[in-house]
């Protein structure tokens, strides 16, 4: 479970987050939507401390993570992250990309890590790509490999930062399908996305963030069907 309390983030004088408060339950799928520069990516990156909050508290399973003496590496093991630009390690094969962290961080024997990695590759439909380098994968394949890599650490929570935004349109579907499967298995997911159709179909809850605040939130049918706030209506009219 993720609890965020009055989270703010400033870069110099620029206030990107202006007090975000939200609770995300176990197995909940939350999609975060909003205009570019609204702070939705920053919000997501604060959840695993890739950005350091300026003020406010973030709790993962009851433990506050933005404190000095917290072992953030231990907490991050429980928080898988998928990036817009994949960020696969280009000097390693797909299999090595997936096994490096289980082997080095979790100290799992190589054979076991590889066995689990092959199962994950099977799950994301890349079982025949284990021994190739990311350079020879398509965008959609790269992102599915990146999802498998994050899953290899057996996280309870998965964070997705615009996972389909740098994909060619014909590859968006295969990535969303993998994410849908994950959601159906009960994974807790926070997804920053511009895929409104996906949000409507898969999300338990949609957050609309604008200018560093959660302006509106609710079930997808409420947000998309009957938005209350003027800015939400305006945004949705442009993207739908």
């Amino acid at each position: 479970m993720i609890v965020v309390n009055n989270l703010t983030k400033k870069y110099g004088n620029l206030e990107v987050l202006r007090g975000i408060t939200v609770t995300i339950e176990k197995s909940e799928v939350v999609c975060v939507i909003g205009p570019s520069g609204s702070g939705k990516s920053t919000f997501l990156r604060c959840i695993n401390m890739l950005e350091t909050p300026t003020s406010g508290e973030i709790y993962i399973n009851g433990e506050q993570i933005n404190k000095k003496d917290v072992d953030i590496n231990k907490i991050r093991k429980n928080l898988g992250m998928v990036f817009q630009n994949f960020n696969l390690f280009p000097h390693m094969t797909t299999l090595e990309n997936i096994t490096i962290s289980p082997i080095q961080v979790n100290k799992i024997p190589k054979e076991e890590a590889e066995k689990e990695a092959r199962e994950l590759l099977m799950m994301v439909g890349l079982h025949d790509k284990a021994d190739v380098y990311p350079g020879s994968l398509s965008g959609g394949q790269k992102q599915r490999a990146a999802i498998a890599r994050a899953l290899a650490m057996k996280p309870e929570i998965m964070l997705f930062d615009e996972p389909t935004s740098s994909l060619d349109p014909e590859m968006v579907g295969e990535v969303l399908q993998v994410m849908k499967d994950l959601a159906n298995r009960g994974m807790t997911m926070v997804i920053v996305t511009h895929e409104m159709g996906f949000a409507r179909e898969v999300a338990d809850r949609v957050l609309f963030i604008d200018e560093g605040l959660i302006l509106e939130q609710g079930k997808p049918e409420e947000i998309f069907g009957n938005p209350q706030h003027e800015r939400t209506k305006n945004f949705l009219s442009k993207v739908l």
Partner: protein
Amino acid sequence: MDIYIKGIQIAYSGIQVTLQITIFAVIIGVIAGLIVALGKMSSIKPVKIVFSVYVEALRGTPLVVQALIVYAGVPMLLQKYGIAFKWEDPIIASILVCGINSSAYVAEIIRSGLQAVDKGQMEAARSLGMTHAQAMRFIIVPQAFRIILPPLANEFIALLKETAVLSIISVVEVTRKSMLWAAATFEAWPAYLGTAFVYLSITIPLSRLVAYMERRMAQSDRSK
């Protein structure tokens, strides 16, 4: 014709010293350069300043002046304080001077190599629970190494040529050999043509190798 071959042979007889100095200097340069690069990237202000000044000072003065300071200046300074010190062999002083000099350039090569790795790589590694040190070791350094290798080889080539100035502190390397022979025989033209030939015989294959490495890197970048 024979005189030209003789000129090459004379210069060539200094090659061992030239290579010896260059190779050991580069080894010192890489080890010290790594420390300097990390120091320059340190988040501790005073450390950063000290190493930045070190790099500026070394890059802003000619190698020949640095050689004179170490070879002639340092023993004098020590003698002033009653420490009897004299360089046993100018080669040792040369290796030291070239190594220190090279460390400043190598540090910049390493620093820019590390910074050239996409910052998403560090983020991905950290998001997988790796510590900063693990991320550097498994993810950043192996990628930076490929970026660093060609300019590092170029630094080796540059240093190899630079060692010619060591003739001024009486190191009998390639250039000095030719100078001595030219002085004795008045055959300056074949002597120094021979010197140039010997340097080229090393630098041309090496720069071919660098070009090859750069081509291969460009290819693997395209397939990223």
